[in-house]
């Protein structure tokens, strides 16, 4: 009995440790394996050239990632600007103004929205958002567009990152103690002043991490954006123009990857950029959350 129990404990204990170690090493393993694959490209072209050149002609061996990086950033920023205020306000309503029943409705809503696969968001974008941008928004600004544009991508992305941000915002607003809210009211604040001055400030770190999560989710989203953003290698500031974000580049050219020299290396490098940028965004927001917790 004793011996069996000992070895059972030993094995399962070690197994738990090993699994955790493997999981925690996964980002490093991913980074290294993508790095090895893209080493050829880096060796030939140099990091600065790859990141800041906008010449893209794989068959001639020219790989400038700048238009892709800028497209990704632009689409992400549009999505964030559209989604963040909606999430913030909706989370305020759910936790501060509405009846408790609303919370019970909102959780499944956010769950379902987070669960719907990206290909379905993409399909919805093609059916609804593309015609909307082409026939409603574009005439408003007097532009002509096919609808496959940065703006469409941004709108679809905004909808996709709502559930993640909303969920986190609700959680962080909920943790504001009732007594704190009461004392603000007792000092003569109106309900809205209380929300504005106390609830928002108290849950500021939570708001930051929700926004960080939303941005990373938007930055890495592939299929849905690819289906509506037009996929033209260019960068323009006009949101009605098409663009070509990084994830779409990887997913779209997978078929011909092996037929052009260095192309596979370039696509793996694109994946590496995505990984690094997302880890950096994560770190950046962590730092801010840490700072804001310290100040208060």
């Amino acid at each position, binding site marked *: 009995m004793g011996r069996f129990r000992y070895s059972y404990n030993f094995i399962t204990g070690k197994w738990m440790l090993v699994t955790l170690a493997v999981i925690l090493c996964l980002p490093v393993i991913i980074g290294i394996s993508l790095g090895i694959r893209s080493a050829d490209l880096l060796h030939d072209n140099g990091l600065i050239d790859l990141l800041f050149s906008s010449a893209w002609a794989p068959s001639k061996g020219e790989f400038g990632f700048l238009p892709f990086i800028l497209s990704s950033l632009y689409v992400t920023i549009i999505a964030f600007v559209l989604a963040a205020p909606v999430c913030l306000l909706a989370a305020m309503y759910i936790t501060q103004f509405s009846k408790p029943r609303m919370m019970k409705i909102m959780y499944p809503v956010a769950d379902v929205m987070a669960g719907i696969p990206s290909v379905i968001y993409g399909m919805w974008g093609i059916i609804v958002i593309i015609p909307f941008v082409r026939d409603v928004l574009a005439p408003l600004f007097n532009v002509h567009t096919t609808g496959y544009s940065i703006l469409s991508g941004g709108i679809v992305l905004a909808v996709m990152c709502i559930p993640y941000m909303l969920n986190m915002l609700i959680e962080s607003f909920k943790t504001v103690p009732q007594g704190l809210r009461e004392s*603000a009211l007792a000092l003569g604040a109106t309900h809205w002043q209380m929300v504005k001055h106390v609830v928002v400030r108290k849950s500021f770190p939570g708001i930051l991490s929700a926004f960080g999560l939303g941005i990373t989710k938007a930055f890495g989203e592939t299929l849905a954006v690819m289906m509506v953003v037009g996929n033209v290698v260019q960068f323009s500031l006009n949101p009605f123009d098409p663009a070509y974000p990084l994830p779409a580049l990887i997913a779209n050219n997978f078929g011909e990857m092996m037929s052009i020299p260095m192309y596979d290396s370039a696509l793996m490098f694109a994946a590496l950029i995505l990984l690094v940028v997302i880890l950096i965004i994560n770190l950046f927001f962590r730092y801010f959350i840490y700072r804001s917790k310290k100040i208060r």
Partner: protein
Amino acid sequence: MYNNENVILNQCPNTGKDSLNAISIRDLNVFADKTQILKSLNIDIPKHKITVILGPSGCGKTTLLKSMNRLTDLYKALEVSGQICIHGEDILLSHKDMSALRQKTGLLSQKPYPLPVSLYKNITYGPKLKGIKNKKILDKIVTRQLKEVGLWEEVKDRLNASPDCLSIGQQQRLCLARGLAVKPSIILADEPTSALDPTSSQIIEKQFMKIKKTYTIVLVTHVVRQAMRLADYVVFMHNGEIIETGGVEIFKNPKTDQMKEYLINGN
């Protein structure tokens, strides 16, 4: 939500400037869903005295206190009816200016809840909401209020620091100063010393004795000793009903069995 018809029929009892009472409560009923938390209470709270609401946990003391500045509005399930008169005005009537109404009373909660801003801004929050913007006046208010609660010497060098750097007792005094800064006439204190160590509790109690000349204090507590130390007027509650009221003499001669039992167990 509020049962207004009754109130219009009854005149508001005199709680104006010349009256001896600061708050008059008539026929106050509070329901949460279908359970009745407060059962037709009638209390007159005397001016410039410490009124102690004593009773075991869960007897509705806190609900009574919170209905005195309409914080019951926050809980959608609560239904309040009856009449609570402060300054000759029934506060349970649907009010246009809730914040002015709440500024007539200052609240001290069980735990200190400093606002997530600097010490200075904690005190000026209330006056600023009232519309005072002049920096000199605000400075004066901060100095005066911190001195009033005996916190000035301890924090005068770090007014821009976060309240997190204060001890919990200091935080509670900060909350008292913050409440006094809006110049209320009534202080509502909900077991304000229950989270504090004995020394800090003693300081708070001393403050109460000091400021009762100018403020009416309503103190909720379940500690008999504290009630005996502070009370000028005692309201003993049990299960949402008022069992006994009276001056300090009721600690010596309780009339009801419930109160007798509570005093024996409490001591």
